Structure formats: C-alpha cells, structure tokens
C-alpha cells in the first residue's frame, strides 16, 4: 500500500514540477492525436455527409462497413499498417515505420470511421429537418452539404471529440507501428504499458492522471457544447 502511496506522491510531483520527460511524452501524444484527428475530420465529415445525402450504388454496404469499422480492433490496424510500411511492404521505401507519421496513419485509420459514422447520423438528422425547405429554395443535396455541415457544426464537433478520445486512449496500433522508442515514438499509453511492466509506477501513474484529465476535459467540453446548443435552441 505504501508503495502505491509513494508512487502516487511522486506522480503528482512529476506533474507539477513539469518533468521534461513527462512533458515530451504528453506533447508527442497530443501532436500525434491532434494531427490524426484533424486528418480524420477532413476525411470523415465529408464522407459521412456524402453517405447521408447522396444516393449512389453501394450506399447501403458503405453504411454497414462504416458502422462496422467503428469497432476496428486497433491491433489489426497496427498489423496492417505495419505490413504496408515495413521495408518489404508497398510503402516501405518511405521509411515511415517507427516514426510519429506511422502512428498518425494508424490513428487516422482508426478514427476516420468513427467521425464518418457519427457525422453521417448528424447530417442525416439535420437533412430530415431541412430537406423540404432547402429543396424548396433550390438546393440539391450536394449543394446543401456545406450548409448542413455548417449548421451541424456543434454536433459534428462532438463527433470529432469522440474521435479524439479514441485516438488519445489508443495503445495497440501505435505500439506496433511506432515501436515505443524513447524520445521518438513514446506516447502516454505506450509508456504506461511499458512502465507498469518495468514496475515503475510513478511515471505510469503521472501519465495516467494526465490521460484521465484529458478524457475528462474532452467529456466536459462535449457536455458544454451540448448544453450551449440546447440553451440556444430554447432561446
């Protein structure tokens, strides 16, 4: 028990003393996740909106695949990205394996379906409300797409936050394609896994607290956006 208490105390002091190693790991984690979520948003929101609004052959299967991909096992994604980026893989010449870029690619693959599927639902709901009015004004579904994305921006931001939550909490894929190399590809989740296996609980706990704080902040932010939207709707 005393060991845990000591580790907890050390963890707190690591956080408040802004330990350089801890700061670097947190910084890289945020960099990888923010880049991945930005790319996934650019890909996922229009993809979700297209599936919601446009009628094209294979739309049904695309919807099923998008929903199924929301639960993609990270280790499988890690394995696939590993195979593609490894020296003998199709993109091996770029030498991206065990770099933050590889981690970003893996996270983009994991997060894009989440953002796309949630965006599809948001845009579909909004279209049900707007369709008659926008069609009456002369907007085709394609022309209505940017309008609906703009009007659904708060709801879509919640989808993006859900994607960010998934990205920051992910460990399997980034471990496989990043390699958990000290000062290069070591992020919060992979460090926690490593430090626990080494028995160094202080750093693991400190990172756990930071990770938990990020998750709580994301949750609070999503709730705040929801509350503001509801207040505006009531006004």
């Amino acid at each position, binding site marked *: 028990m005393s060991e845990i208490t000591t580790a907890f105390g050390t963890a707190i002091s690591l956080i408040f003393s802004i330990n350089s190693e801890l700061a670097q790991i947190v910084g890289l984690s945020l960099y990888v996740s923010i880049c991945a979520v930005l790319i996934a948003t650019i890909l996922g929101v229009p993809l979700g909106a297209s599936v919601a609004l446009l009628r094209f052959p294979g739309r049904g299967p695309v919807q099923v695949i998008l929903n199924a991909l929301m639960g993609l096992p990270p280790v499988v994604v890690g394995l696939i990205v590993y195979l593609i980026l490894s020296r003998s893989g199709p993109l091996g010449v770029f030498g991206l394996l065990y770099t933050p870029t590889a981690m970003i690619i893996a996270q983009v693959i994991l997060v894009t379906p989440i953002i796309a599927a949630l965006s599809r639902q948001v845009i579909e709901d909004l279209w049900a409300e707007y369709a008659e009015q926008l069609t009456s004004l*002369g907007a085709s579904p394609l022309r209505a797409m940017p309008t609906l994305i703009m009007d659904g921006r708060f709801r879509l931001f919640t989808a993006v936050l859900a994607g960010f939550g998934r990205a920051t909490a992910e460990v399997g894929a980034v471990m496989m394609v990043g390699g958990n190399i000290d000062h290069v590809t070591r992020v919060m989740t992979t460090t926690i896994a490593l430090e626990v296996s080494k028995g160094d609980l202080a750093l693991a706990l400190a990172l756990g607290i930071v990770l938990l704080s990020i998750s709580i902040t994301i949750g609070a932010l999503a709730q705040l956006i929801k509350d503001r939207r509801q207040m505006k709707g009531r006004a």
Partner: protein
Amino acid sequence: MTKSPTAPASILPLYLDNVWFRGRGNIPLIKDFNLSLSAGTRTMVIGPNGAGKSILLRLCHGLLSPSEGQILWSGSKGRPKAQAMVFQRPVMLRRSARANIDYALSLHAVDKSKRGDIIEDVLTKTGLTRQADAPAHVLSFGEQQRLAIARAWALNPQIVFLDEPTASLDPSATYQIEELIQRLSDQGTKIVMTTHDLGQAKRLGDEVLFLHRGRLLEQAPVQQFFEQPENDLAQAFVKGELLWWKRGEGSRRDPKHVR
C-alpha cells in the same frame, strides 16, 4: 398594357392534368386532379385534415412528383424558379436573418452586388430591419414566419405557395402575416394558400378549392363558395360539421366550374 421586352415570361397558368399521387402502400392521396390556377387571384385551399391540401401544394411546388398525370406551367413541364413556398414551420438556418435571405438569393444565382438592396427591401417590407442581424432561429415564431415570407419575397416569385402559414400564431402575428400576404398579392404575385381558418379564407381569398379525401370537390369564387357551396360536403364543411366520417365525393357540382 404592353409587356416589357425584359419582363420574365409568365409561368402561369398552372395546370394539373389528371394528377394522381400515391403514398406508401400505393394509397391514393391525390385523386384525379384537373385544375387550372391563373395569375393574379388568391386561391385558398381548404378541407378537413387528410384532404390532401399540403400534398397538393408540394406537388405544385415540385417537392413531390405526381404518380400519374402531369403538372404544366404555362404549358411546359419542369419546375420553374419563379415560385416559392412558405411552410407551416419554416426552417431557419443557424445564421442571421439577413444571411438566411442572402442564402436563398445565392441559390437563385442572384448577383452578389444586387443582394444587399433586395435584402434591405424585403426586411423593410416585412418589418424585420431591427432583427436583421439577430440569429434567425432565436426569433419569435411570428418573426420567423415573417422572415420566411421575406425570404420567399426576395426571390421575386410569380407564385407563392403557403402551407397554413398562421396555424401556430396568435391573432396579432396572424394579422401581420395576412397583411404581408395581401401586399405580396397586390404586387402581382399569385397566392395559393392552405388554411383551416374559414374566416381567413374569406378575408384573403378570391377563389376557394375545397378538397376532401384527396379529391377536388369544388372550385369556386370565395363569395359563392361560402354563400352557396354546390357540393353538399362543402356545404357541411362551411357549416362547421365534422366530415371525417363522410366518405365519397358528395354531390358533384356543375363541371363547367371545375376544369
């Protein structure tokens, strides 16, 4: 009066030629409509719930396509741009009142340099200049409906379809909307409007279309309709009797009144 060479060609009259519309399960909701709507007059579409009033407006406006028959605008098929529709519950985009009108104008490819004047003009006409920069969705329901009319007005339509535009409004807001409809009509816009308010139909209408169970049972000038409706179901409706249990078409009126 000679027509100006630059004046847009009239899209009216609007003809419905043997129009049927079938809903889910192939259930006919509009049955064999033959109808002509000419320019100028204010046409009130009345009838009990489920008569097909809103569907008729959506068919005419082009939001729905007929299952059978055809809709012709001045003899041509297709959906002309010079028409607009105001819904019972208008949808406002999450932007200012002014931007909502601007959006409609942009969809109609109105030159950006001309939009400002048009927007100011319709905002003034509808008494919304003070609310111009307020978010549209926080306006009162009456103001939103006025904005919906302003948005339609900005498009300079030859015909405006209004689907129970005052159904959820208090008398004061209803009065304002009726006044706007009058003014819109006075400038030459054809009005086709559904309403459950017979007093409103009398106040605003020049002619009445009476629908029951998807059929057009009577088309008559407003005074004639309210004083001497020729169809017995229309007569019962004007008297305030409940029609929901009545089947059939009532007694047919003289066909010369209905195209």
